[in-house]
């Protein structure tokens, strides 16, 4: 506790101070919200919406500039969804998977690239929304819901009968998997981003200049990979839920 206090109180090292587990609370009725998460997530949403708007404002057959860039990204997302879900069924899932990827990616990078700490807020500090467990759990639960929805919509209640494929021994494992999947999804993302933030923060605290740069670059890489992993796993769960047994490749 002393250590935390000394770190926060050392004014000339204010840039490098690390605050964890402190939140800017907003209260709506008797609901408590983490304000800093929403502030940065709105910033991320704003970026995504503005870029999307600019990219599709004036669609050309021969793309250039930002349209070209966003088409590249959309092609990438479609390829990801197509690989995991399959040519026939992937299209309705592109918005879900694409938004997962884009939101997590832009969140992570904004957390790594923008010095949010310079903006003072009364409590806690601004950081990537994915640095908050609420965000990652929300996405993980949405992913669970998405693959249950996909499976049930495709196969009806026969979806649960597939738990006994290829043998009834699989039933408990499959059932446990339904709980471990959101858990691992949310904690993987949360843990990686938190670890990166902490490592960079501590290093900046010790050596403010230049030395943390390689670690920051590594952080950018990890951030991108985590977004990719989350989106790929979500797509793969959805694809698996819709897979028809006996028709596997």
């Amino acid at each position, binding site marked *: 506790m002393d250590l*935390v206090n000394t770190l926060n109180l050392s004014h000339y090292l204010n840039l490098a101070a690390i605050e964890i*587990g402190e*939140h800017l609370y907003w209260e709506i009725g008797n609901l*408590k*919200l983490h304000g800093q998460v929403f502030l940065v997530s709105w910033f991320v949403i704003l970026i995504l919406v503005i870029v999307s708007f600019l990219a*599709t404002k004036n669609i050309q*057959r021969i793309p250039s500039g930002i*349209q070209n860039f966003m088409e590249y990204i959309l092609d990438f997302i479609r390829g990801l969804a197509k690989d995991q879900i399959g040519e026939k069924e992937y299209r309705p899932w592109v918005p879900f998977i694409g*938004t997962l990827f884009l939101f997590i990616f832009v969140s992570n990078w904004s957390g790594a690239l923008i010095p949010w700490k310079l903006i003072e807020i009364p409590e806690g500090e601004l950081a990537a929304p994915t640095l908050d467990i609420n965000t990652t759990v929300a996405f993980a639960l949405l992913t669970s819901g998405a693959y249950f929805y996909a499976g049930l919509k495709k196969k009806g209640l026969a979806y649960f009968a597939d738990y006994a494929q290829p043998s009834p021994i699989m039933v408990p494992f499959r059932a446990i998997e339904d709980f471990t999947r959101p858990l691992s999804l949310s904690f993987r993302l949360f843990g990686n981003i938190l670890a990166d933030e902490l490592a960079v923060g501590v290093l900046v605290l010790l050596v403010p200049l230049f030395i943390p740069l390689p670690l920051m670059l590594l952080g950018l890489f990890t951030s991108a990979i985590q977004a990719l992993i989350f989106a790929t796993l979500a797509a793969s769960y959805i694809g698996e839920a819709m897979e028809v047994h006996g028709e596997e490749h």
Partner: protein
Amino acid sequence: MTQWILLAAETAEGGGLFDLDATLPLMAIQFLILAWVLNKLLYSPLGKAIDDRAGYVQGQLSSAKDKKANTLAIAQQYEQELKDVRKESQQVIAQAQAEAQKIVSDQVQQAQQEVIVERQKASEEIETERADAFAYLEQKVEALSNQIVEKFV
């Protein structure tokens, strides 16, 4: 370091690292709204543009293929026609040469015949001239011999 994180997780009153609250459902709702908005704003129009372009390229490609096949057929037809025309022209040339040859030989023959006829006529004329000349000479000889006879007798 671990101690420090644990401290932070434990000590913040009503907070901490694993503080789940209403942020979670609101974030989920916000995410779904974002997905919907981005679908309207980004995925649909841009996906449509990509698909349209793919269709356009496919169409262009197949029409180009058609055109190529067409062109090849036309070229082949032209080549065939060219071959025919060449053959025909050769025939015409051969025919013309044959005709010319015939004309030449005809003319030559005719000329030769004419020459023969002329020659014959000329030799006949020479013959008559000669006969005439002999006759005249005989006459002269007779007259002279008569005169000589008269002078001597």
